[in-house]
């Protein structure tokens, strides 16, 4: 067991010959058997819930029926794509909603997280920072279902706090749950409320690592507080902001089903703006059983998402070699 630590045995053998690599693999299996054993549960989980579902994408070319299963169902050729393009409108709507909501979440979420982090960095009162940081982080721990329930008590037509407020101001009540475009604003605000405190922690941690001599030098040179923020703090955060944004771009086509379900309860009146791809697949395939169509849109989501990740990675590489994800 111990001699493997000597560098000599780790030198690569002449590559290419099959017998050598097979023998090497067998040797490695014996030598590192306990490592394979430790990795095994994880490998099984990854295969079952990540890799096999990828192969399930052949569903796109199948005429799925539940009895024959994924692999036994008859081939359908490109029929599902015809179906896909025939209901293009719904698919496009779902895509537009997903990208639109994610882009809005990303823009507003980043802005608020960064703003909170910068402000916290300016404050001197330790206990104030500690207490408010804890409070702002708390919503992150709450599930969307609960947030949806509380939102209902805010937005309900008759009983909601918001409409009571509008009434007391002499304005007419709003029917929030049937205003798809207004609800986009509500979703964005809910997202900020839930995650800005969490995001702020990341940026605040970056700022804590900044060399204090920058600040001291700026102060000696007579920079105002505002100048210090815009000329030192913000530039310090830009690499992290870019990295987080690039990470987010890859997930642009992934929606948060739990959020939409938890907050809108799939209210049909709100679907024009809340029908994201995942919700769409859930509604058409899992609830209504129209598998062929949903599989076409799933493939499209996977492939498009993958391309987005590759593009984001390329961009990250251009910006900074270390930011590259792989």
């Amino acid at each position, binding site marked *: 067991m111990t001699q493997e630590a000597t560098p000599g045995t780790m030198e690569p053998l002449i590559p290419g010959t099959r017998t050598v690599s097979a023998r090497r693999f067998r040797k490695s299996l014996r030598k590192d058997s306990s490592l394979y054993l430790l990795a095994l549960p994880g490998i099984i989980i990854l295969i079952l819930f990540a890799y096999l579902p990828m192969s399930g994408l052949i569903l796109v070319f199948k005429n799925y029926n539940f009895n024959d299963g994924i692999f036994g169902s008859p081939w359908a050729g490109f029929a599902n794509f015809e179906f896909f393009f025939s209901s293009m409108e719904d698919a496009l709507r779902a895509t537009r909603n997903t990208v639109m909501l994610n882009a809005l979440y990303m823009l507003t979420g980043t802005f608020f997280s960064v703003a909170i982090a910068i402000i916290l960095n300016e404050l001197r009162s330790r206990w104030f920072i500690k207490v408010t940081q804890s409070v702002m982080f708390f919503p992150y721990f709450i599930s969307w279902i609960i947030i949806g329930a509380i939102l209902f008590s805010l937005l309900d037509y008759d009983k909601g706090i918001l409409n009571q407020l509008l009434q007391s101001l002499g304005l007419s009540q709003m029917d929030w749950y049937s205003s798809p475009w207004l609800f986009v604003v509500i979703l964005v605000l809910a997202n900020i409320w839930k995650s800005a405190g969490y995001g702020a922690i990341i940026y605040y941690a970056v700022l804590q690592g900044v060399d204090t001599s920058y600040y001291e030098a700026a102060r000696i040179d007579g920079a105002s507080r505002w100048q210090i923020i815009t000329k030192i703090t913000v530039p310090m955060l830009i690499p992290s902001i870019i990295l987080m944004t690039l990470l987010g771009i890859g997930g642009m086509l992934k929606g948060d089903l739990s959020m939409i379900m938890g907050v809108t309860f799939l209210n049909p009146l709100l679907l024009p703006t809340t029908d994201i791809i995942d919700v769409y697949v859930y509604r058409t395939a899992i609830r209504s059983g129209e*598998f062929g169509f949903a599989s076409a849109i799933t493939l499209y989501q996977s492939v498009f998402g993958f391309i987005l990740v590759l593009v984001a990675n390329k961009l990250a590489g251009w910006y900074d070699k270390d930011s590259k994800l792989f």
Partner: protein
Amino acid sequence: MQTTENKGLVIFFYVCIAVFSVICLVPFVLAVSGSLSTESRIAAEGYSFWPRGFTFETYQFLFGSKAEQILRAYSMSLVVTVLGTLTAVLVTTAYAYVISVRNFRLKNFFAFFAYFTMLFSGGTLPWYLLSTKYYHLGDTLLGLFIPYVLSVFLMFLMANYFRSIPHEIVESAQIDGAGHLRIFFSIMIPLGRVGLVTISLFYALQFWNDFYLPLMLVNNQDLYTIQYLMYNMMANIQFLASGNAAQVGGAIIAPPLETAKMAMTCLTVLPIAILYPFLQGFFVKGIIVGSVKG
């Protein structure tokens, strides 16, 4: 002049943070207040930040007629959280250890094998069909946590912790004849305590809050978790209304629908709120470690 400008700015900053912090807490006050109000006054006057007609009736109603169902969902959530977290931490740390072993030839392959799943996925539908038709996870306890026991992100976080443990300790153990299993269980796990606690907390939170898995895989009411029960309650009022109109002295008493929703909200958040002060620090530490090198 400059100092006064700065003073104003600083006060403005304090106010901003204070206001946002209050906004973060206000909705919970609303929920507590709603749960302690009387149904009739909520129906007539709407929700408010101060209980309308302070009463514990709603909780009495829930614990009276819905106790069994709520307790079952509660214990189901607890079981899923405990089992899920234990399994997940074991699977995750073991995999993380393997890719953190310095001279393991395939460590990069295994790392990429996990990483690739973050980039590309088959999507919801094939996942759903495989889980229900081939793995038979529909309406099973396993289905409520098994799909989530390896979070690739937390796995890499854990691998970073393992890599930060001085290599000399591992080397000396190897010289003493310890194998990987031994090193993993009696050196890495105790030394990686902080990382272990962090990922356990993240997993526990995820399992407690999850409602995706029950939504996809569960029909049997016995397997409802508290979050899913809550969802059903919000999505259809029937849960509370059905067979509950208790007859007392000839009069039909309607169940408290609105206040019950708020009471359930409070009950679901309660465990998190109680544990939060103790756990919050670990999460912050975990996020910082994960973001500095992630």
